[in-house]
């Protein structure tokens, strides 16, 4: 075996998406040394896939907007299961985070006055999403990537070494987060290029690994979305919160098969795309839930008028929150009114001219035309739900993004839980990355000040190395590709968009069985850029995530946001009062119910009491928030 590479940093950031990069910038600007570790090349993170925009109540397009409205929308979207403090911080700080990007060179689309333009999006009361055409995520990642380069250039000028404070370790997989005496001491991993092992010694680790989509069969996530951070945190002793909540984006491509799962941005509906079933019905009018009846149009005429006059008409039901649209499509397909490939039609060609479509939705046009040979200016798209986002994640302190229970561990972005409650609004993820990426950076800075050094013991190193070597020394064992496919089949069929207690129980058993077999995964070939070897570790992470999701889903006997139980339809205010906390005992995932922190009075008072009655118990309403 080759010799172990060793590094010492103040902070190790795992994941180079929006949250990770924002955290790294923050820590570096405070003078810390930062290692950024990512599985892909630098700048390829899944953040680039975000199209719609970043929600921030700058009020550039409608000056009625402010953080309070944004907070209300976020809580509503999350069905009040959000951690109120995270939603509050997010609503208050996102405008500053967007403006900051502009100061680093981002070029958002502009309003006539030359301000950052903002667009409408599902669940947001006012036009709120700062955007660049439909490639906002790319703009965000590139801006921060370039910000990091700018900081490295400063280091190069000042001390002759561009990597003195920030070094990017691209194509490196972290297999373990290491602790000594109950505190974070570093991380261990290997270069994907050659399999050589790497030890990072650092008092603080920030997890920003994104989502878990690859646990499911149909997903918009890339191969990277294997829940690494979720699993690493669990194994390091942190908790996951509300893992039953997964957002199925209502409109993923369902045909042709090679592009199945790839997202069709919500902007297509925002720009006037309508959903129809195989009978040609615009079915969304049938699926407006009681709580939304006051703000969504119940007839086509009013819905159509909304595009021209938004002040005097209610919005089209195509713009309902994602979970509602996903469930509606699912119901149509189940009732036999879907397309032959199991989706519904999304058509933008009837309302907009080809020229306008190409101008407003350039990447969508491009995506369908080049990936699937479909011209969306002429024909309808076939779409259906695809696993898109996990609301659940590492349980953190809102203000510092510190993982609860593990000193020195932080989490931000999709891998952190609580912010979005049971359902995330479109546009809130990009701003989430920025707000909590920065807060995780700040949290790490404060922590490192009082815990400046960390040393990893020899034993921890030998153990970590042994785990990496293990799959090579097993002969004739299981194939990681086929186990992955089996897992995806189980999650898709049994803990997918619609769940029942019986099926989830079955899933838990099957996942346990696959996990047992995964202990025998053997890898062919060498260590050098070997995808089979890489998948062996990813698989382990996905199995833990799936277990956590299934077990949480079994306990929650209601339907809310990204968790729909066929045997318990409808929300139940009692269930709103608890989070499900997953922890790992080294052998299996355990779930406990934990009361939600109660909303302080000043935030409680932002809502109309009648609205709260839809979500809260009479006792909670009577109390009127805490303090």
């Amino acid at each position, binding site marked *: 075996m080759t010799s172990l590479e060793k590094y010492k940093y103040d902070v190790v950031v795992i994941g180079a998406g929006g949250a990770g990069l924002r955290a790294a910038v923050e820590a570096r600007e405070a003078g810390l040394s930062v290692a950024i570790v990512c599985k*892909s090349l*630098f700048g*390829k993170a*899944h953040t*680039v*896939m975000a199209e719609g925009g970043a929600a921030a109540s700058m009020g550039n397009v409608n000056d009625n907007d402010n953080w309070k409205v944004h907070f209300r929308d976020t809580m509503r979207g999350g069905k009040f299961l959000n951690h109120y403090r995270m939603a509050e911080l997010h609503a208050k700080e996102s*405008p*500053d985070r967007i*403006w*900051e990007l*502009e*100061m*680093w*060179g981002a*070029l958002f*689309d*502009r309003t006539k*006055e*030359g*301000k950052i*333009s903002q667009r409408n999006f599902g669940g947001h009361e006012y036009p709120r999403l700062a955007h*660049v055409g439909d*490639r906002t995520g*790319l*703009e965000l990642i*590139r801006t921060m990537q370039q910000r990091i*380069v*700018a900081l*490295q*250039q400063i280091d190069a000028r000042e001390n002759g070494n*561009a990597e003195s404070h920030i070094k*990017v370790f691209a194509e490196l997989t972290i297999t373990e987060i290491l602790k000594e005496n109950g505190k974070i001491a570093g991380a261990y991993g290997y270069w994907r*290029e050659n399999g050589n092992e790497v030890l990072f010694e650092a008092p603080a680790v920030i997890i920003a690994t994104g989502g878990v989509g690859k646990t499911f069969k149909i997903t918009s996530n*890339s*191969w*990277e979305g294997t829940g690494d951070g979720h699993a690493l945190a669990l194994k390091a002793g942190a908790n996951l919160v509300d893992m039953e909540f997964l957002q199925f984006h209502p409109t993923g491509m369902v045909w*042709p*098969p*090679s*592009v199945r799962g*790839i*997202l069709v941005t919500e902007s297509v509906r925002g720009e006037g795309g309508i959903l129809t079933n195989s009978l040609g019905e615009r079915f969304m009018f049938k699926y407006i839930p009681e709580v939304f009846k006051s703000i969504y149009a119940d007839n086509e005429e009013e819905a159509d008028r909304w595009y021209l006059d938004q002040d005097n008409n209610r919005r089209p039901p195509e713009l309902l929150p994602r979970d509602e649209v996903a469930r509606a499509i699912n119901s149509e397909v189940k009732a036999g009114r879907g397309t032959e490939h199991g989706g519904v039609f999304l058509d933008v060609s009837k309302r907009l001219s080809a020229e306008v479509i190409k101008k407003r939705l350039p*990447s969508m046009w*491009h*995506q369908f035309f*080049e*990936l*699937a*040979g479909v011209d969306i200016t002429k024909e309808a798209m076939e779409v259906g739900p695809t696993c898109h986002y996990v609301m659940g994640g590492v349980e953190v302190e809102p203000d510092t993004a510190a993982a609860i229970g593990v000193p020195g561990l932080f989490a931000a972005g999709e891998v952190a839980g609580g912010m979005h409650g049971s359902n995330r609004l479109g546009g809130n993820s990009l701003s989430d990355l920025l707000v909590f990426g920065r807060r995780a950076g700040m949290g790490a800075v404060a922590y490192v000040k009082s815990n400046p050094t960390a040393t990893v013991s020899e034993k921890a190193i030998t153990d970590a190395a042994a785990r990496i070597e293990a799959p090579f020394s097993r002969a004739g064992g299981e*194939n990681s*590709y086929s186990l992955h496919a089996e897992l995806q089949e189980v999650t898709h069929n049994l803990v997918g968009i619609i769940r029942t207690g019986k099926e989830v129980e079955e899933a838990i058993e099957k996942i346990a069985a696959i996990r047992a077999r995964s202990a025998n995964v053997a890898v*062919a*070939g*060498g260590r*050098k*850029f*070997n*995808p*089979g*070897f890489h998948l062996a570790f990813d698989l382990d992470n996905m199995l833990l995530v799936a277990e956590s999701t299934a077990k949480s889903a079994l306990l929650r006997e209601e339907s809310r946001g990204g968790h729909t139980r066929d045997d318990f339809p409808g929300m139940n205010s009692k269930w709103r009062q608890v989070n499900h906390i997953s922890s790992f005992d080294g052998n299996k995932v355990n779930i406990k119910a934990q009361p939600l922190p109660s909303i302080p009075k000043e935030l409680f008072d932002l809502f109309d009491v009648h609205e709260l009655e839809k979500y809260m118990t009479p006792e909670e309403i009577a109390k009127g928030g805490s303090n």
Partner: protein
Amino acid sequence: MTRKINLRIWRGDATDGALKNVEVEANEGEVVLDVIHRVQATQMGDLAVRWNCKAGKCGSCSMEINGKPRLACMTQVASFPEGEEITITPLRAFPVIKDLVTDVSFNYRKAMEIPAYEHPKDLAPGAARMEQVDVERSQEFRKCIECFLCQDVCHVIRDHEENKKSFAGPRFFIRIAELDMHPLDLLKNRKQKAQEEHGLGMCNITKCCTEVCPEHIRITDNAIIPMKERVVDVKYDPIRWLGTKIRKREGIV
């Protein structure tokens, strides 16, 4: 509709390698990356390939297909005539690591050499005002997904390893153009640096970068040539030079 196709995939590493024949099934609507994954899952478990979004947005799956630099996720299998063999190799301008994966670190080193955006210090957050017409040119270049196909196809470095020292390549010429056209950027000498340090003069505008760009960025017409013209403004135009001595004109210096 499923059909059998014959692939020739380059397998090997820096020491040696060869094209290996393999027969694989392809379904209707599939792209080359799909069939590579099928090969990986069924016949060559350790075939190295870089990919990520599989939607033409991240620029990871750059390779050469029938000799042309392309994204494997954007290349329809149906675009090749039935029965024709499809040859797949790694990018040929960069050092190979293994199979279809190359070492593209050259590009990250070059990114480090381009001076960063400089924002006016007196502008408070949110106070910046920019007109849409003023940001549109730079926005085109910011569509770049950094697939580095333009870098790969550019003969200046593809055919001349030694030029890598002094040549930034098309990807970074659009970066320089983006910043030089940015309405608020304060750095003044980007044009001179482009010519003197980043090798803009090495480009002989043969437009291969534009031909391969999956984002259809008009690299040559909208970035490289305008930058060459801007260089002429500051370096090779005596009348303009005289003009700057007499009165300061916008766009100069």
